[in-house]
């Protein structure tokens, strides 16, 4: 499920719908209110994907601008935030792909799976480091590094499920794929992270 928000951040559905209708009539102040409500969650989600504050800031801006331009097409079939999430996710994934092409970067999608059968229960332990106590900063750095090695698709599902706490259906709506694909991507993304972070969570 989408994470619980504070009362100020989580308006009654009618209120949100009214704001959306005002936006569709061209009311920028109503859109300002929606930005205020969702900016922190939007920024956090994007940050968790790109692991860089400035890039996350810029991409969140782009995402909200795209939302404003296409708000006329919002029909209320999902919540506004689910709809916004999808825009933000598309903006972020597009950016990551462009960056990957421009920078000649290549995600190693097979990382950690070379020796893992789809049905294997445990990840290989050959990349583990000797047991040592890590500082919070080091732990965050290890998580950043591990997540940045995932493909865009795997990164999206792991962030939305493990960090944002979203349900499979919500992730499917945000990413634009089936629930089955979400679950399958989660399986592989977890296996990769398990390989890269095993020494971290075992020494906490």
């Amino acid at each position, binding site marked *: 499920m989408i994470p619980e928000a504070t009362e100020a951040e989580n308006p009654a559905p009618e209120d949100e719908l009214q704001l959306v209708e005002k936006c569709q009539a061209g009311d920028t102040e109503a859109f300002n209110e929606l930005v205020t409500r969702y900016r922190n969650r939007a920024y956090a989600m994007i940050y968790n994907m790109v692991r860089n504050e400035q890039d996350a800031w810029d991409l*969140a801006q782009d995402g909200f601008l795209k939302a404003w331009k296409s708000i006329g097409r919002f029909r209320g079939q999902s919540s506004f935030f689910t709809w916004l999430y999808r825009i933000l996710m598309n903006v972020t994934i597009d950016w990551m792909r462009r960056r990957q092409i421009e920078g000649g970067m290549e995600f190693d999608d097979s990382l950690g799976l070379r020796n893992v059968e789809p049905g294997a229960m445990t990840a290989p332990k050959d990349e583990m480091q000797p047991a040592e106590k890590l500082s919070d900063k080091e732990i965050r750095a290890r998580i950043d590094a591990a997540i940045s090695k995932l493909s865009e698709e795997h990164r999206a599902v*792991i962030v939305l499920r493990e960090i944002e706490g979203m349900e499979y259906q919500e992730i499917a709506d945000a990413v634009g794929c089936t629930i089955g694909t979400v679950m399958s991507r989660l399986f592989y993304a977890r296996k990769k992270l398990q390989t890269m972070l095993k020494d971290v969570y075992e020494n906490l």
Partner: protein
Amino acid sequence: MKTFEERYTAWIDGKLDGAELEAFEKELEEHPDALADREDLLKLGSLLRTYGHAPELSNAEFFNHQILTQIREEEKAEAPKETVPTPIFAWLLRPFVWATAAMLIIAGVSVYRVVSPQQQVKSGLDRYVDLSPTPEPEPEKPYNVQIVSAESTDPDISVTPIHSEKDNVTVLWVDGLDYLPASYHGE
């Protein structure tokens, strides 16, 4: 039919129940490490939730401000320019148009009479023109442009106008400009 990966993920997240859970756990009997792996993945999830959170959004108010500024700028750029006056203005403007046209006609006639009286005499159409003095032909002006002042905004650059009556020419002499590079001429 769900794949093994899908059911395994659902099992890790506690989303299997009833007959589906029973059947899958029976299947997992062939994988003795499954329970340990599940514990592992739950620890991984806990690690990500604890340490994976993003920092606070900095300059939140500026974040909104920048979005709104961009929206307004784009809307301003896309707005159609007003070119057609409203009907009430068109109605009000009409007398001014006629008055302006009448003034232009009067001015045109006056200019014609002042500028070319000789032509009028030749044509014999205006008999009282003979009483008016014949205008002296205007001397040819030495030049058509008069330089009132010449100055530069850059204090290092001075501009001096120089006029030669003999050659009927005015030159603006500019001092202090950078030299063109030697390669410029070649290009």
